[in-house]
């Protein structure tokens, strides 16, 4: 198996840039938009010395903006109100939140919480499709004159003299054996004064930067959940637009973290999904199966009966909170949005924080540009801006929320109560955390664990109407890649898969990947031995494998730009 590795001896054309934003999600789009506003304001005041937007670029690996965006989603309008006060008049909105409720599910019953816990109350928020919303933001960017390079991935960071000097885009036209094809085009070296990483959850350049600069040295490790989502069309009257439902409990046991959302959109569409914390103990846990089991609960089955599943997708989200966020700015770089972990895990909301972080980064970038200084000192002011803003007001009190669940659901609920009563302090200011994959148990340790989790384990068979097997679900993600290219899931040592992992964990990649990328196949000629087989073109770019592989030998790098899922309406 040949993995995607940088080609030797290739000349990369160079392009100068003032600012490069890697990632066209809400954070990247908000950053570009804010930057454009600041430039316009500046140019209005200094018509004789205008700044140009010519050399500001956004890199987006999807074929078009929004294509790889997936979320529930609920938008807290706070940051959009700051960015574009009239946004409600133009932006695509599914519905204003009409009602919210929280349910605790057991195998057969559903218990509604008497009141929705305040952090989950959604009055004043909006149900949106993040794909459509971000696409709309993209159209606003087009109007500004800032260039979006869609279909181009940031594949490597460029370093010079200890600073981030820019980004190299992906090589195009590389075949399965990692050789240039007839239409080969080398990636461009975008030499940029300021590089802003807005890659979303578990960004690959962010990971590269964190490794090179040891960014997490005094931080908690980032922890994650994976959201597996289906978009449904249901018969009229089943759910109101703007109806918001959260569930906890079934099908998870007390040993897993997670829960589901159900949002009513317009025209009888339902967005539903299950977030499974990527810190579960049983290696056979399959997040896509979890979603299927969830749908079989009478409460959900009743809602979906007679409906049609329209789209499927999955994406991870960073739960770690305040203590696991890396330094936000340094020599030539800043990190925004989910890449930095701007997510309120208690409220399960991050889009508004991503947008705000993008705005503050834009302001920092603008100041750096004006002063000609993009050093750590200057870009480090981004950190201060974040701490002085309502971002900290919101995130600091929940800084220990997810860590409180490290010992299971029940203690997590107790901790939550304690944390809320103490403004987030709990029993000490900073609760430690452990990387989720470390909590995965080898198969021989599962003996002592409570059973009753077959509904989470292994591949879902699916009945084809209410529940689906993974391949059928995957088809509905619209995922397409150029077939003739090297595998972009780089496994450092595939012998570990066959010789160690098979025995220790039973190759959990077959289960945790929501897209059937990883398969264990028989070794021809070696009875009883299995080897890893990849289907890279199935990849939905969720990053679960990079996060959850127990040996941490999988590195996800972007495949050739333009490929990936097609999250219409998600």
């Amino acid at each position, binding site marked *: 198996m040949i993995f995607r590795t940088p080609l030797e001896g290739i000349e990369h054309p160079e392009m100068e840039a003032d600012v490069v934003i890697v990632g066209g999600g809400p954070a990247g789009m908000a950053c570009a938009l804010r930057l454009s506003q600041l430039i316009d304001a500046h140019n209005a005041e200094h018509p004789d010395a205008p700044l140009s937007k010519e050399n500001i670029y956004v890199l987006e690996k999807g074929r078009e903006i929004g294509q790889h965006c997936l979320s529930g989603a609920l938008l807290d309008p706070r940051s959009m109100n700051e960015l574009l006060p009239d946004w409600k008049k133009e932006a695509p909105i599914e519905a204003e939140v009409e009602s919210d409720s929280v349910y605790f599910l057991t195998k057969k019953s559903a218990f509604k919480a008497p009141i929705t816990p305040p952090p989950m109350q959604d009055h004043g928020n909006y149900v949106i499709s993040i794909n459509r919303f971000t696409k709309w933001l993209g159209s606003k960017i087009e109007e500004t004159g800032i260039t979006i390079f869609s279909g181009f991935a940031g594949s490597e960071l460029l370093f010079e003299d200890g600073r981030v000097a820019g980004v190299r885009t992906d090589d195009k036209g590389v075949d399965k054996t990692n050789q240039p*094809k007839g239409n080969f085009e080398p990636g*461009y070296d975008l030499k940029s004064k300021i590089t802003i990483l807005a890659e979303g959850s578990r960004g690959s350049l962010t990971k590269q930067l964190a490794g090179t600069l040891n960014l997490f040295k005094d931080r908690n490790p980032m922890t994650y959940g994976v959201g597996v989502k289906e978009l449904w069309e249901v018969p009229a009257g089943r759910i109101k637009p703007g109806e918001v439902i959260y569930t906890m409990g079934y099908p998870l046991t007390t040993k897993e973290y997670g829960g589901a959302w159900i949002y009513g959109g317009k025209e009888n569409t339902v967005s539903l999904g299950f977030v499974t914390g990527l810190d579960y103990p049983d290696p056979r846990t399959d997040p896509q199966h979890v979603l299927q089991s969830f749908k079989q609960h009478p409460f959900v089955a009743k809602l979906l009966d007679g409906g049609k599943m329209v789209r499927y997708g999955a994406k991870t989200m960073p739960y770690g909170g305040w203590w696991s966020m890396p330094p936000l700015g340094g020599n030539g770089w800043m990190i925004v949005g989910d890449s930095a972990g701007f997510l309120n895990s208690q409220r399960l909301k991050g889009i508004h924080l991503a947008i705000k972080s993008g705005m503050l980064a834009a302001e920092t970038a603008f100041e750096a540009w004006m002063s000609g200084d993009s050093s750590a000192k200057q870009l480090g002011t981004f950190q201060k801006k974040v701490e002085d803003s309502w971002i900290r007001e919101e995130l600091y009190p929940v800084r220990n929320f997810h860590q409180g669940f490290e010992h299971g659901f029940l203690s997590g609920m107790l901790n939550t109560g304690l944390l809320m009563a103490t403004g987030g302090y709990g029993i000490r200011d900073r609760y430690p955390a452990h990387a989720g994959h470390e909590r995965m148990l080898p198969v021989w340790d599962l003996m002592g664990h409570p059973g009753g989790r077959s509904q989470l384990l292994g591949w879902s068979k699916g009945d084809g109407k209410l529940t689906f097997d993974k391949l059928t679900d995957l088809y509905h993600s*619209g995922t397409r890649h150029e077939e003739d290219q090297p595998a972009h899931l780089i496994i450092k040592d595939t012998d570990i898969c066959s010789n160690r992992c098979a025995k220790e964990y039973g190759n959990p990649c077959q289960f945790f990947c929501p897209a059937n990328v990883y398969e264990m196949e028989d070794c021809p000629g070696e009875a009883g031995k299995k080897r890893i087989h990849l289907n890279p073109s199935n990849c939905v770019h969720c990053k679960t494998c990079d996060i959850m592989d127990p040996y941490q030998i999988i590195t996800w790098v972007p495949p050739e730009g333009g490929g990936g899922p097609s999250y219409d309406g998600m």
Partner: protein
Amino acid sequence: MKILVCMKQVPQKDAPLKLNESATWIREDVGYEVNEPDAYALEEALRQKEKNGGEVVVITAGPARAQQVLREALAKGADRAIHLEDDRFTTLDAFNVARAVAEAIKDESFDLIFTGLQSDDFGYAQTGVLLAQLLGWAHATIIMHLETKDGGIRVKRELESGFFQYVDMPVPSVLTIQSGINKLRYATLIGIKQAKNKPLRKVSFDEVSGALKPNQLAIEKLYIPQKTKKTEVIQGSPQEVAKKLVAKLRDELRVL
């Protein structure tokens, strides 16, 4: 050589298509992409330009969203673009689209016009041939290969069952290009940047409406094909099954 490439924007291949309210067309809220055969037509035009010099102009007829196809073509190296921009262009039948294009280019003097051999949505495969008829030009369809020569061009046509044919043709001509005849190039970052400054002429519906006639083809109804399928189960020993299948193939299905 001045070459015009007619390009069309079609719904993405795996997009979930839904019928509109009147069941005469699909709902437009899907993702779009360039019609695949047209991408090959563009690639061929760009290669001809690289070999023989000249100009490549791209044209499309469709709503504002169709501009994306032109932008991508300009980014790959086309020199100019013409956008017949109006929602109404998607309601025209093939003959009228050809009339609109002919009208839009009436002041130009192209040597060759390329189209893809057919579109992924309608699949009529007519626009190029109709354009040739309107312009009074020679044409050839399903072209695999093109060479310029003194006084004209030599093309390789694809026929059924693995047959091919060379044809000598005059210039100007219209050619419909087969998919997969070359490897598509990628747009580069510099190409995308430069595309922003390349001329893009917009042509309104009113500017060409005089050349149009009432549509002669209409879609009365669009629907999901219902397959009334009854699965017949064949049982028995392998030999019995084989005999039954052969009988079926020979007598019912007529493939033997």
